């Protein structure tokens, strides 16, 4: 029998007895980032492919959420910082090795563009909107003329943002549960899925809802595939990775994960979406609402369980 303990006494705040440096801020920030990335990806994609009129909710209406979501996410990040008055230091350097750094810069690209995108579509919400000043009209005309390049930038950066929400965790090899590169694609897929779900929730157009239900169904399939692969990878890896997987396979996170994320957040909405595509009449909002709630719970579980997984002691 082997027992290791700290005999000098150590109770550093946020570190002991297990790491808990990140509370609700970071998982919320990652959820909102992923959701915004999903919405903006579809808006940009259907603009590039010239389907603005076919999918008006995805291109024009849903992106109105993103400036709000991203601002709340950034506010959560700011609240999480312990040395808040120095936050501007994030933007005096770019460190490619640090996901926190290039993620902050990615948000610096995506957030202003989300405001621009909303401004260009302001007449969808307020048909009588008046910009008042000539330079604002000129600015609008400039952005409208360059909408395709902007959509391309948004498409690429929304994908980077989606991947970043996962890479932020997976860069930490000190936390075996996070230390898997599958987290990048997994969080991206989850973000796109919640984005598609948000579009279904907002859409008043039946054909558009069905298209996004179909997209969401495909994304859920990919997500399930990635989750299974994540656990397979852990179970075939070192002892610390096996122990990390066991947090979800019999450990304290088993019920919340398999009930709320896997069953209610993925399996049930997938079945509901399938039924809807088979022309069963169901309240359309149930599946997307479950997907969004599942995505949020998933971020919280990964953030907490990751901090509980470790190498020694």
């Amino acid at each position: 029998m082997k027992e290791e303990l700290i005999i000098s006494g150590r109770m550093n705040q946020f570190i002991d007895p297990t790491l808990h440096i990140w509370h609700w801020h970071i998982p919320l920030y990652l959820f909102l980032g992923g959701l915004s990335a999903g919405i903006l990806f579809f808006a940009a994609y259907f603009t590039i492919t010239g389907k603005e009129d076919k999918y008006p909710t995805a291109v024009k209406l849903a992106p109105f959420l993103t400036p709000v979501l991203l601002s709340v996410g950034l506010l959560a990040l700011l609240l999480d910082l312990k040395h808040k008055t120095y936050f501007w230091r994030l933007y005096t350097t770019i460190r490619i090795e640090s996901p926190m750094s290039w993620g902050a810069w990615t948000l610096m690209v995506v957030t202003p563009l989300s405001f621009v995108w909303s401004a260009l579509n302001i007449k969808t919400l307020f048909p009588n909107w008046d910009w008042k000043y000539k330079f604002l009209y000129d600015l609008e005309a400039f952005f409208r003329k360059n909408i395709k390049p902007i959509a391309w930038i948004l498409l690429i950066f929304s994908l980077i943002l989606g991947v970043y929400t996962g890479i932020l965790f997976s860069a930490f090899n000190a936390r075996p549960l996070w230390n898997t590169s599958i987290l990048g694609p997994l969080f991206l897929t989850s973000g796109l899925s919640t984005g598609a779900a948000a579009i279904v929730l907002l859409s008043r157009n039946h054909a558009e809802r069905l298209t996004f239900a179909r997209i969401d169904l495909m994304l859920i399939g990919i997500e399930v595939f990635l989750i299974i692969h994540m656990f397979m990878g852990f179970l075939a890896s070192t002892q610390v990775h096996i122990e990390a997987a066991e947090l979800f396979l019999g450990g304290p996170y088993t019920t919340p994960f398999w009930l709320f994320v896997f069953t209610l957040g993925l399996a049930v909405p997938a079945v509901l979406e399938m039924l809807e595509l088979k022309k069963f009449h169901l309240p359309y909002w149930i599946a997307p609402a479950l997907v969004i709630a599942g995505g949020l719970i998933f971020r919280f579980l990964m953030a907490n369980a990751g901090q509980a997984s470790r190498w020694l002691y």
Partner: protein
Amino acid sequence: MAVDTKKCVGCSDCVVACQTENKVPIGYCRDWVVEVMDGTYPQLEIEIRSERCNHCENSPCVRCCPTGASHYADGGVVLVTPDECIGCGACIASCPYDARYPHPDGYVDKCTFCLDNRVKKGLDPACVSVCPTKCMYFGDLDDPNSPVSKVLKKRKFKTLIPEAGTQPQLYFLI
């Protein structure tokens, strides 16, 4: 730095010396003592280790820091510049040894090997100088005549979780 697990008695003088020398806020510590009990009574083996930041050569904390506040200083000592630290916690999450903590003033704090306040003046770090059993050896690993280089030449040693890939520079004599 090397710590002799055969000589360490776990008195925690190193912890108190560090707290005093570095004005570590009350309730926090930059170093700590771990006791490992192995076997079944009466066949017991005990190992005592004074632990702190491993000043890794491939430091995940330096890699993850978004502002460059965590950096390699003279001789490979890993330090934090308080004025550049935003307190995001990335380095804390990235450390497999849990050697860092957020200082109540906001920035992230950890063992400095007393680089500026003692070592640059030619003194040993506080923990090393105060140890009643002289179980710690400090110095430049690139200098073959430093106390730490000498002791590592003649004794068996180990590092903690080298499999984490951080190339830790805190050696435990066994």
